[in-house]
């Protein structure tokens, strides 16, 4: 039984790590966070049988662990609040040169977007969760995931444009509702 639980969680460790890195933005802390979450998951008496639900459950444990850690440390409250805040990005439409999007630039840009935006990018694009699973993890409706993800990607593209102005050109064609 114990080994079965270990075997079940192992395939998700890397994806949990990717998500954790975007939450804490530090490799060592991310490793700790994953291990903490794994400890809790492995010690749980009940866990979802369905694989998709199990996956969402794991990520939710990690997210709750992160929030608990932040609260315990009593610091970085702004960042904690931003996790749940709606990030506002004025630019809705953009133009860009997709040839210049590369891994290193994207990594740096993710580090500059708001924590809540980095989190949704990590859940969908790094951890590979579906919108439904991410909604389960963040305890919000699927529609909210869709809109937050859209704003996060726009913010990321804006950051990439800021990398010397050559990565992406953004044009404010029109604003939402305008």
């Amino acid at each position, binding site marked *: 039984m114990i080994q079965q639980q270990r075997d079940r969680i192992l395939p998700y460790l890397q994806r949990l790590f990717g998500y954790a*890195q975007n939450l804490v933005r530090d490799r060592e802390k991310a490793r700790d966070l994953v*291990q903490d979450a*794994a*400890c809790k998951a492995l010690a749980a008496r009940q866990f979802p049988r369905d694989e998709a639900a199990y996956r969402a459950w794991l990520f939710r444990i990690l997210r709750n662990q992160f929030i608990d850690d932040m609260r315990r440390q009593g610091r970085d409250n702004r960042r904690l609040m931003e996790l749940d805040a709606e990030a506002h990005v004025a630019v*809705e439409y*953009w133009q860009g040169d997709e040839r210049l999007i590369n891994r290193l630039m994207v990594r740096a840009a*993710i580090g500059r977007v708001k924590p809540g935006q980095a989190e949704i990018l990590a859940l969908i694009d790094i951890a590979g969760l579906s919108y439904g699973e991410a909604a389960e993890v963040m305890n919000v409706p699927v529609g909210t995931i869709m809109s937050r993800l859209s704003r996060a*990607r726009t913010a*990321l593209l804006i950051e990439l444009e800021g990398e010397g102005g050559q990565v992406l050109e953004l044009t404010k064609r029109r604003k939402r509702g305008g």
Partner: protein
Amino acid sequence: MAEKPVDLALLGAYVDGELGVEERARIADVVARDPEVARQVMVLSRLKSAVSGAVDMEAIDLPRDPTRRRWVYGIAASLLVVVLSATAIWLTAGGGMGVSDGSDRALVAHRAWSATAQDRSLNPRVVLASAPDELRFAFVPDLGSARLRLVHGSVLHGQNGSALLAGYAGSRGCRVTLMVTVAGSEISSKFELTEQAGVTSARWRAGSLAYAMLARGMARQRFHLLATSVFRASLEAVPISRETQVALARSRANSKPCMLS
């Protein structure tokens, strides 16, 4: 009839494969007809791909014996009174580090407190405040640099003296116990390190007090550094030096998670 607009969120859902059959077909048609929308889809796809590869993954270790079920903790908790009573009996019967191997007795106490450890952080001064006079000057270190929080403090009373118990908890299943008693004449100031059945322990004398420190499942090198650091600091009754704190943090970062006890 005007065509429904295609916004960024919808294109994102298209790229993510989150649309239903009909909506997906509609977007595919727009992409085929509108080069600008097609370009946006391409940018989103490349962005998604780049984000997915933006993290350098690394191997994550799981605790080696991580799944003590809660019923085990429940049983352990219900046995706590028995264990503490047994510990008190041991002290009453002349136990303690002044008489026999303190590490064995510290292990009993270690099992007892770690089964019911609370998620909190105590100040060493608060723990010392409850100590009897003979243990008031015990060295209870702050091990925060090793990512160990002081979560337990208690005093065990016995006929032949009292023992001050300090319990530390790490974030990866690590539990460390430090037990301090009045030293008997047979306790030497020499630092002794032993390992048996996954339990690593150290004992030493500092002034008139005897110290026993132990952990279960902790990497040997990490425990060794931890114990020697506390040993040296206890001799001089000074906080662990900055350099040692850095070494403890590194040691912790390079070690595997502990076995849960």
